[in-house]
């Protein structure tokens, strides 16, 4: 256990911060730790959480994905057409939504790998394309999502918010097993040292393609869950999510230089960011000062993370 904490210091810190923030939130909330309060909180957290997961897969291979918000907008608009009708139809509909996300990610990956263009620039351009397609689907917000399905996904299971159950599934059902596959390790190898990964006989092109496709899958999941929460399709949602997803992964201990961090950290970072926002709302800080406090906390958290370099005794170390 101690070994685990030492080697996953960043995730542990993020987890501790999250628990502290959540206790403060539930303590200050006028209605206390009720299922209702927890459900609203968890839903908001999970939307950004899934977006952060998408960003994580791009960042871990030393990339960045500026199209996360756009993929969410596109899949949200797709969802507003296909999540009505029979149970089987809706099941296919959900698959279609995630598949749409995966396609977006695959397109990013193909251009990055075979066009040899930097991920930041590629995803900047494809984001515009994805938003355009979303606008074709929904020029104005509209459409609907089956209420029973939406309720099932956004309320609670035996008093536990469904969003937390989904989070647990993402961690225990997907991430922990995935981490033990060749692909899972390959992502880290590629992000940590492309040279070493290549020399170890890893197919770096395939791994990078897979990473961006996975980013698309999670962008699609984020769009899907967003649809459950809002029950409409809106092509204009992309703006905030992309930049917040970057902030979230950084808060969660994922290094932008690649190869370090985990999906758990990305989720924790997103939950922290959203909890801070919720905490502000009930904290008694004047509402006009809240955005400033959010910004200050974000900057302080990041600056503390950066303060490590002030301890470097060899000035060349910081240029790595």
């Amino acid at each position: 256990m101690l070994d685990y904490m030492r080697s996953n210091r960043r995730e542990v810190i993020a987890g501790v911060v999250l628990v502290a923030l959540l206790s403060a939130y539930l303590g200050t909330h006028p209605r206390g730790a009720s299922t209702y309060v927890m459900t609203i909180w968890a839903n908001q957290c999970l939307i950004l959480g899934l977006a952060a997961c998408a960003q994580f897969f791009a960042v871990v291979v030393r990339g960045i994905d500026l199209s996360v918000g756009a993929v969410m907008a596109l899949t949200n608009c797709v969802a507003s057409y296909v999540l009505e009708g029979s149970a089987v139809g809706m099941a296919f509909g959900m698959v279609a939504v995630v598949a749409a996300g995966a396609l977006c990610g695959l397109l990013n990956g193909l251009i990055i790998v075979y066009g040899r263009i930097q991920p930041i620039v590629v995803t900047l351009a494809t984001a515009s394309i994805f938003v355009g397609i979303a606008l074709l689907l929904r020029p104005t917000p509209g459409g609907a999502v089956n209420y029973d399905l939406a309720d099932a996904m956004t309320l609670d299971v035996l008093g536990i918010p469904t969003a937390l159950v989904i989070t647990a599934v993402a961690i225990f059902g997907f991430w922990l097993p995935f981490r033990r596959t060749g692909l899972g390790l390959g992502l880290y190898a590629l992000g940590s040292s492309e040279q070493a990964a290549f020399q170890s006989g890893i197919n770096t092109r395939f791994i990078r393609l897979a990473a961006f496709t996975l980013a698309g899958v999670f962008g699609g999941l984020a769009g899907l869950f967003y649809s459950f929460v809002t029950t409409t399709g809106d092509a204009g949602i992309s703006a905030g999510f992309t930049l917040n997803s970057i902030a979230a992964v950084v808060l969660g201990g994922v290094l932008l230089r690649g190869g370090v961090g985990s999906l758990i950290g990305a989720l924790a970072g997103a939950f922290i960011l959203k909890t801070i926002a919720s905490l502000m709302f009930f904290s008694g800080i004047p509402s006009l000062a809240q955005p400033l406090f959010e910004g200050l906390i974000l900057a302080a958290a990041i600056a503390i993370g950066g303060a490590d370099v002030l301890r470097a005794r060899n000035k060349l170390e910081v240029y790595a």
Partner: protein
Amino acid sequence: MSNSSTPLLEMRDISMHFGATKALDGVDFICNAGEVHAVLGENGAGKSTLMKLIAGVLQPTHGQLRVDGSDVFLNAPQAALRHGLVCMFQELSLVPDLTVRENLLLGAPAAGIGWLRGQGLDKAQDVLGRIGGAQIKMAARVADLTLPQRQQVEIAKAIMKKPRLLILDEATSALSASVVEKVFDLVREERDSGTAILFISHRFHEIEALADRVSVFRNGQRVETFMKGDHDYAAIINMMVGQKIEELFPEKPPPRQDAEAVLEVRNYTWEGQVKDVSLTVRRGQIVGLGGLDGQGQGAFLMGLVGLLRKADGTTAIAGQPTRIGSPKQAKHQDIALAYIPEDRKTEGLILDQSIQENLELAALGRSDLDAGDAALYAGALEQLALKHGGLELPVSSLSGGNQQKVVLAKWLALKPRCLLLADPTRGIDVKTKTQIYAILRQLADQGTAILLLSTDYEELIQLCDETHVFFDGAVVASLSGDDLTPQNIIAATLNVSPEPQAAHA
């Protein structure tokens, strides 16, 4: 030793060009199963390129590789692995942010992208135990391991792939003698079970201990292949260098212990990595810093140009106590130190910029110099005989040796009163080495004080007036005059007292 009719690996008329540089030029090479084949040559002779071709990291510009008598095209390391060609790289192929276990899993033969079952992990752990790495934790991050530990993991990773041909490229350079012996036992065992071993090392006694057959490379060509014992040490050196050692170095003038001191360092200490080092470099002196890699001599040089924080000790330049906090201060005309860093590609040069721009970069910040003035660089460039197709071409288009000449010319333009060099001839061809030796000698004759860190003890002997040997952060021996012998340097390097013995030639 088996001598089957079809060699395991055959290379025919292989050439490898990097831009204008010919790393390999029409090489034929054969490697048989069940023998240890040592490959010798100076840095830059083409050994590492040869290995990278076999490992599928590079593809030859021209020529054909054959495995078991049939043509193969190795377009990626995966392809080489499929033929059982496994390389333990000199530049480590471990992923720093992953654990030992994960690195071994990644390298396992059937890793793929699916579920990793850990095939071969037992074997790897067994190998680690046998080569003295039993204490290495499987859960430890590779970045937290020491260099020797990483080499041990690399060896285990290579062996667990069940190679048919195993390349050991400076595989044991950081390992202690007792561990090296264990590795050799393992290698002999692999050989006896039919594996072909390609063994690259700079240490003659290791070749002596392990090799069955030896090939010597020079300037991208295979000079000769012979059975171990067919030639003596001196003959092999001649083959490697193409000329006698004495001809490489300029004549050493008599020592001048009375010249004025340019650089005086007293009690320099930093972070437990440099311990209480004191030394003096005088006008016209070349002072050497020796020792195995990472014994503090590199850090000490960095400290002199202000790269280390919180160091103790005093520095005086030309008698004036001086504190140097950054390379910018160090190059100021009142101090005029120049530091040639060890890694020219990442520290000495900006590879994407032109030769001209690289030359100017250091002089730009000096108010007393006009960096655009070609005369600043002309002297050094001419004397070093820089071969280039135009100063406006990117510096990356030059060969390694010519790149190093650019680094030197860039700093000599500042007319430094004291020149600090971190292993300036590592990985450089013999001809360039001679040119660098000559210019260093000439600079010294003109009054420059030179502090030369080197891993090549011939340089420390032939070029330096005095050599300080580092061990574990401290200077354990300061040798000059008749004491400056290979035996004394090697003994000091290992921090043992020298034993009288015949020169191993």
